[in-house]
């Protein structure tokens, strides 16, 4: 049995929006600890805070379309002993209120949780204004901040519970449209841990958030061509699990990262920083490369940006082939 149970087959996985897991996790966190409060900027159902609002109406605070106030009021509530979860679309929080997050949550060291729903190309038809691609970069440079991009809705529920009790500022990266569920209730989740979810020898595929499932698909495609990829799921981008990543890189000698975000400053950059300092290793970073998104169905956009499992397999195949010549 694997140390990290996943679904038995990736052929026909169940789908659910990652944000739904947050909605369930927040209710559980609220039931477990009455210090948990929830603040929303006029997107209560979109961000899945409505279940918490129904269950704990006295602990739900509507702040209106005011993301700067959202985070700073939460900072005050944290000072008064509460554990505030704040939610909006990621394009606006942390997109609009970065300085408030830096000063009043991180420097002020208060356990304010920033929940950014609607990240990545997954937002689809709303287009570039609402497709948050820069959030990983913005959040991971902040001291004290923990940055989590769950791989699916089951993991998002666990991540929400974990952030409720870790005592520090946190960022939780969610997605709107349904994505495949590949973890199980039994899969472990600890903040700061990366997990080998498929063993391999030829290269290491490192995914965060929605991209990990696509890497499982890519590994399957590659396997048929005789390339045996190891797949690491890295839900916590900060702090990065250096030991697990370095062990895999040392074994395979080739690392590929994938994220539904800007490569610049994002997850791939975090891995690049680690490898270049600790274990210089050939590295390919996949994601969005210094451009904005656009309207389209989520799947169409992933295809256009070369981020489906099949596209990733083809891109990796080209690298592996060149590497062997």
């Amino acid at each position: 049995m694997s140390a990290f149970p996943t679904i038995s087959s990736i052929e026909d996985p169940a789908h659910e929006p990652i944000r739904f897991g947050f909605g369930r996790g927040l209710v559980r966190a609220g039931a477990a600890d009455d210090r948990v409060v929830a603040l929303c900027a006029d997107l209560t159902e979109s961000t899945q805070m409505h279940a918490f609002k129904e269950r704990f109406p006295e602990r739900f605070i509507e702040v209106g379309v005011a993301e700067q106030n959202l985070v700073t009021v939460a900072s005050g509530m944290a000072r008064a002993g509460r554990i505030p979860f704040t939610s909006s679309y990621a394009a606006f929080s942390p997109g609009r209120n970065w300085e408030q997050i830096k000063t009043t949550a991180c420097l002020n060291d208060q356990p304010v949780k920033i929940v950014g729903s609607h990240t990545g190309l997954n937002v689809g038809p709303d287009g570039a204004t609402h497709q948050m691609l820069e959030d990983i970069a913005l959040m991971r440079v902040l001291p004290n901040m923990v940055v989590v991009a769950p791989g699916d809705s089951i993991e998002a529920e666990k991540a929400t519970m974990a952030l409720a009790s870790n005592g520090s500022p946190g960022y939780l990266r969610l997605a709107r449209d349904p994505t495949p569920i590949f973890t199980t209730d039994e899969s472990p989740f600890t903040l700061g841990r990366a997990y080998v979810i498929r063993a391999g020898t030829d290269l290491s595929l490192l995914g965060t958030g929605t991209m990990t499932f696509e890497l499982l698909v890519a590994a399957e495609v590659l396997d048929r061509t005789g390339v045996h990829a190891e797949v690491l799921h890295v839900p916590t981008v900060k702090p990065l699990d250096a030991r697990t990543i370095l062990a895999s890189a040392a074994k395979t000698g080739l690392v590929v990262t994938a994220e539904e975000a800007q490569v610049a400053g994002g997850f791939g950059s975090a891995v690049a920083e680690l490898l270049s300092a600790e274990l210089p290793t050939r590295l390919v970073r996949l994601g969005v490369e210094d451009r904005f998104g656009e309207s389209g169905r989520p799947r169409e956009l992933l295809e256009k940006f070369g981020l489906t499992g099949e596209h990733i397999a083809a891109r990796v195949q080209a690298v592996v082939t060149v590497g062997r010549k």
Partner: protein
Amino acid sequence: MSAPEEVDRLESIARDLRRSVLAMLAQAGSGHSAGPLGMAEIIAVMYFHTLRHDPARPDDPDRDIFILSHGHTAPILYAAMAHAGYFPTDELMTLRRLGSRLQGHPERTALPGLETTSGPLGCGLSQGAGIAYVSEHLDRSRKRFVYVAMGDGELNEGNIWEAAMFAAKYRLGNLIGLVDRNYIQIDGRTEEVMPLDDLAAKWRAFGWHTIETDGNSVSGLLAALGEARAVSDRPSAIIAHTVPGRGVDFMEYDYRWHGKPPTKDQALSAIDALEADARR
């Protein structure tokens, strides 16, 4: 009404705080002069009259909360905290030095007794509202007042008005905003940089009980605070008209003293000016 002896006591404390501020700034060689001097009565009244607090127990859960939102006026806050007993007054001379707990702008994690980290403008009223909300709606066992001092230039920030709407919506009667209305900001006169008047009408329109007073008058402040504390169904804004650089004749009303410290010689003559002002 306040007893004349009480007013005298607080005025005397305000002078002591000004003296400390001038010495601190001259020693540090950087920092803001005009704002902290203008705030002396407000801070003296807060820390030596109105606030329920215990310097020996800075985390006392029943304490009132004071937030200095315009953190660049930190020297006057530090002076009051030292004189009140939060830390030794000798430490005031470490302002802005490497390793000092008295950071250039207040940093909560550095110094017990600070409620927030502040300096980037516009955040304090929201944080105060968050604390006031918990006291008013979630943990009614701890009735506390939350006071937030703001600069007038700071009111250019949209975050302030987001907080103003929030506090009115949730009827935060325990939240009291203190606007240091000195009509200066870094680039010049507030009404030239970005006009704020009619400022009282603005706060009233946002649903706040609004009081105007002379912010350099101890008795005026005591009366305004008494009125504000008696209003329980909505937040109160006290627009405290202050003289920037108050007490030092060559600094008063001059926006060029907003962001710079006196030299040591200037500080000595300023302290002399304070003594003369006291005899006036």
